[in-house]
């Protein structure tokens, strides 16, 4: 490339940017996680805003909560991102610590703040970081008026009504109507009871407070509802609980404001009221109330600030807040609206408001995420019947303390870091020095035979273009202390992260599971794939149709099929259990509730997803085998097995080898299936493979340096495997 070309191009790009900036409206972007009903309202609000303020153009982008978080972090780190984000308050603490959102107290005056519910102003370490325009995510008791005419107000009434409702309505010996149901797997749904027994998960010093009598009582209470009073189903994750209520098979459900519209849409006459009072303490259960609102990006440009604030003020105005409440049933932040008929005349809204009154605000500190991750496995284990409430409370506390310490630790640079740079430099020099002959040969060879290099080089340039930088970035990251408290200004600190990986008690068990996961999957993928390809290679009428049906698992998007499999593994209603009970007369299996079975369920799902690919590759490979070879073998009187061994196998091998190696690598790193089928490692984080373990235990808790180190270890394992396998298979060499 000519030397002047690049700067010239950059200038050109710069100029077009300047030219565009003049006279066009100020463009601002909002990233949000609104549900569909909210999005419909937002569209109308944007139209209205555009009419009032033609000088401002607002673009909105929906992202699912977790992706909003990670997407915003990435873009803010790269110096870009939307001007503002709208999300739940629990992301405020981490964002503020990372330094990717701006303090707002100087931008919103006192009068303005006073018009909002105080809980809508989210402060963290003496700064205002979020101004909420709506409340939500609080759990309430939702009851089906057809089954529960008068809702319970105390736990005793709850149990009594529940017991009347829980019965076998069609006389097949199985309970098919329940008094109460809710998501058993998420501690978020347990928190109201923790509060009801007088406890809470975190104190004002951000320390976990889980080793308490209140926690033991609450755990015991939840377990008793199912095992002693038998008013809830044996196993219910969110979707199961939701389905039971939606189909009129549960009288009451504990669920949040996002779900009410669906129930109404499905024709259920619902009522919304407080979760019943706990008699033992005389306290109302305390669901978490989470404001959702606006925060400003640290990269927000000064000239766009006014436009951004204008938009937020518009959204906080009385009329817009009223439209939101009227059309979505979501509680607005403006206090004056409480007396507006839109709320006061709507029994669901007033029920919701009553629940908010006894709820507690969502803690916004990052420690909360570590607490959730610590509560979840123990909570699931209590309900799985493997540990007692007492053991769980102790275990939760210990784990939470450890995770919080890990999350907040900032590793100090080791004294040998300068030496590390020296070694890296030396290694680079040595590498160049020792490869100088190869380089020389390469250049000479390329000059001599340009044809060869022209055909090969483009592919490699494209591959390495996109991978080299990210890879080197991770190498450096793995030796750094990048994390929650060092998001921008991290340092290279040495090999401490690697040390932690190998000292991590869970690591070796997870590695073992990963190896089982990978090998079992691969054996079945390749075995079934080749077997089917051999059958389909024969002359058979209708094989085109069969082939088409057999690739369906590859063609339909994985996300939905994996979740469908999860549904099929449901203990009581899933197709798998119904089939094995009906046609094979075998005892039913609690697939998703116990570790080994849940892991098997993941493997079965992944085998289903993966065999068509291997089948297609094998089918293609079989085409390359000249049939004269088989004819010659027939003349020699060879048996089918001899033909397979001496003709099919050696000629199929070169075509299958790359798929087998890459299939292994992909399966080893397959996060999706585990995540979807076992719902991120359930039960009790017992179904993790290495990648999902990295994601959950490191990446999720902002430990980026540590996550990078773990990923490097994964890379090293696969590298060793790859080299070993290729050597054995002699895949680089031709066959003929």
């Amino acid at each position, binding site marked *: 490339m000519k030397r002047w070309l690049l700067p010239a191009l950059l200038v050109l790009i710069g100029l077009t940017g300047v030219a565009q900036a003049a006279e066009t409206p100020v463009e601002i972007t909002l990233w949000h996680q609104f549900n*569909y009903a909210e999005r419909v309202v937002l569209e109308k609000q944007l139209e209205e805003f555009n009419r009032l303020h033609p000088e401002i153009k607002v673009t909105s982008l929906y992202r*699912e*909560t977790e992706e909003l978080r*990670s997407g915003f972090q*990435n873009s803010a*780190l*790269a110096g870009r991102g939307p001007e503002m984000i709208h999300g739940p308050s629990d992301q405020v603490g981490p964002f503020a610590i990372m330094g990717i959102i701006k303090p707002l107290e100087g931008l919103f005056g006192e009068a303005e703040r006073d018009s909002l519910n105080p809980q809508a102003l989210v402060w963290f370490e003496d700064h205002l970081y979020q101004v909420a325009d709506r409340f939500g995510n609080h759990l309430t008791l939702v009851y089906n008026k057809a089954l529960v005419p008068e809702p319970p107000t105390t736990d005793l009434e709850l149990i009594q009504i529940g017991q009347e409702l829980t019965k076998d309505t069609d006389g097949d010996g199985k309970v098919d109507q329940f008094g109460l149901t809710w998501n058993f797997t998420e501690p978020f749904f347990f928190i109201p009871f923790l509060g009801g027994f007088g406890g809470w998960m975190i104190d004002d010093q951000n320390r976990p407070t889980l080793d308490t009598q209140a926690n033991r009582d609450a755990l015991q209470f939840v377990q008793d509802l199912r095992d002693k009073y038998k008013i809830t189903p044996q196993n219910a994750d*969110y979707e199961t609980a939701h389905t*039971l209520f*939606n189909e009129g*098979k549960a009288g009451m459900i504990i669920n949040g404001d996002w779900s009410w519209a669906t129930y109404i*849409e*499905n024709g259920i006459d619902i009522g919304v009221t407080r979760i019943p009072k706990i008699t033992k303490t005389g306290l109302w259960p305390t669901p978490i109330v989470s404001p959702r609102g606006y925060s400003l990006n640290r990269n927000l440009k000064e000239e766009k600030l006014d436009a951004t604030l204008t938009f937020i003020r518009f959204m906080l105005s009385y009329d817009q807040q009223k439209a939101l409440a009227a059309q979505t049933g979501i509680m607005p932040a403006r206090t004056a609206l409480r007396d507006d008929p839109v709320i006061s005349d709507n029994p669901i809204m007033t029920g919701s408001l009553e629940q908010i009154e006894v709820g507690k605000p969502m803690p916004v500190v990052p420690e909360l995420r570590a607490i959730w991750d610590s509560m979840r496995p123990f909570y699931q284990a209590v309900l799985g019947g493997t540990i007692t409430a007492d053991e769980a409370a102790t275990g939760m506390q210990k784990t939470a303390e450890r995770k919080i310490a890990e999350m907040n630790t900032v590793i100090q640079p080791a004294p040998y870091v300068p030496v590390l740079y020296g070694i890296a430099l030396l290694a680079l020099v040595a590498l160049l020095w020792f490869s100088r002959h190869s380089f020389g040969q390469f250049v000479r*060879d390329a000059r001599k035979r340009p*044809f060869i290099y022209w*055909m*090969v080089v483009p*592919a*490699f340039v*494209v*591959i*390495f*273009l*996109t*991978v080299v*930088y*990210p890879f080197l970035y991770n190498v450096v990251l793995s030796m750094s202390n990048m994390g929650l408290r060092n998001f921008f200004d991290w340092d290279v600190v040495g090999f401490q992260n690697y040390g932690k990986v190998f000292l991590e008690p869970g690591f070796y068990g997870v590695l073992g599971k990963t190896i089982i996961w990978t090998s079992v999957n691969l054996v079945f993928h390749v075995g079934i794939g080749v077997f089917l390809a051999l059958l389909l*290679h*024969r*002359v*058979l009428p209708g094989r*085109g149709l069969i082939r088409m*049906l057999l690739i369906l698992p590859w063609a*339909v*998007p994985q996300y*939905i*099929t994996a979740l*469908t*499999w999860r549904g099929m593994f449901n203990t009581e*209603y899933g197709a798998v259990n119904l089939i094995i009970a009906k046609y094979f007369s075998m005892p039913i299996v609690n697939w998703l509730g116990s570790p080994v079975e849940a892991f098997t369920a993941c493997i079965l799902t992944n085998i289903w997803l993966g065999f068509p690919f291997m089948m*297609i*590759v094998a089918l*293609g*490979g079989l*085409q*390359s085998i*000249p*049939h004269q070879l088989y004819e010659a073998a027939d003349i020699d009187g060879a048996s089918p097995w001899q033909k397979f061994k001496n003709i099919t196998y050696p000629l199929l091998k070169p*075509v299958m080898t790359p*798929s087998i*190696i890459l299939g292994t*690598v992909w399966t080893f790193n397959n996060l999706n299936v585990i995540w979807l089928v076992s719902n991120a490692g359930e039960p009790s984080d017992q179904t993790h493979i290495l990648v999902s373990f*990295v994601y959950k235990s490191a990446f999720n808790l902002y430990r980026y340096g540590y996550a990078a180190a773990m*990923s490097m270890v*994964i*890379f090293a394992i696969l590298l060793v495997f*790859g080299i070993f396998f290729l050597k054995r298979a002699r*895949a*680089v060499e031709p066959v*003929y």
Partner: protein
Amino acid sequence: MVKNKWPTRILIYAILLVFVLIAVYPVIRVASISLRPGDRLLSTSLALIPPDATLDNFRILFTERPFLRWVLNSTIVSFAVTLFGVALASTAGYIISRYKFVGRTTAMLSILTTQMFPATMLLLPMYIIISRLNLINTYVGLIVVYSATALPFCVWTMKGFYDTIPSSLEEAAMIDGCNRFQAFYKVVFPLASPALVITGLFSFISSWSEYLVAAQVLQDPVMYTLPLGLKQFQQSMSTEWGLYAAGALVVSIPVIGLFLFANRWLVGGLTLGGVKE
């Protein structure tokens, strides 16, 4: 190709039937979600056609959501990746199969290693580099990344397939007056059609269904590809399941179509037999 007697045939059909049932059943469950009104992912009944079945989700998909726009966007991206990927892989794979040159083994091994690093960790640096290159919100960025991810498999598979084609074929062509490139693309390239189908399908399906990178690169809803579009139906705890399932089914139709179209080159097209060793 092997011909069989009837008893063997019945056995083969029976086996295939079992696998077809296993392959199809979950997809039928997805279809029944798409027919259910009111966003119900699960059902306590095993009925495949729900009593209150409706095609509303399909109607909403096509009329109330920009679904066709997503289809168009994804088609552009996926075809570009497929053409680009297959073109690069078929040439590179050929050379690697036929010639010994400096750096060959290293190159082959190193492209495999690019697949070994967990993808989640690559997203942040990839975002940084794409945004530095000003490729955010462009298909160019997406197409390059997708090709780079699909290429290692494609190059290796092409190479493996070329390995099974005897090189005496090109030698004969070159004696007949072809140059090296002509010998490649007139003689060997058509014979490699099954591998072209495999790599083409692979490139297509992987870019057709890719989500993670697309979510980083595309930040303008008008440019959304299908996976990003379908993801719009998904919200924490209030997913529009009916639409999602309907969308997922419609999305797989082009894949099936492409497969049927490519079928004749995958199986039963040109077969080897021109050479006797």
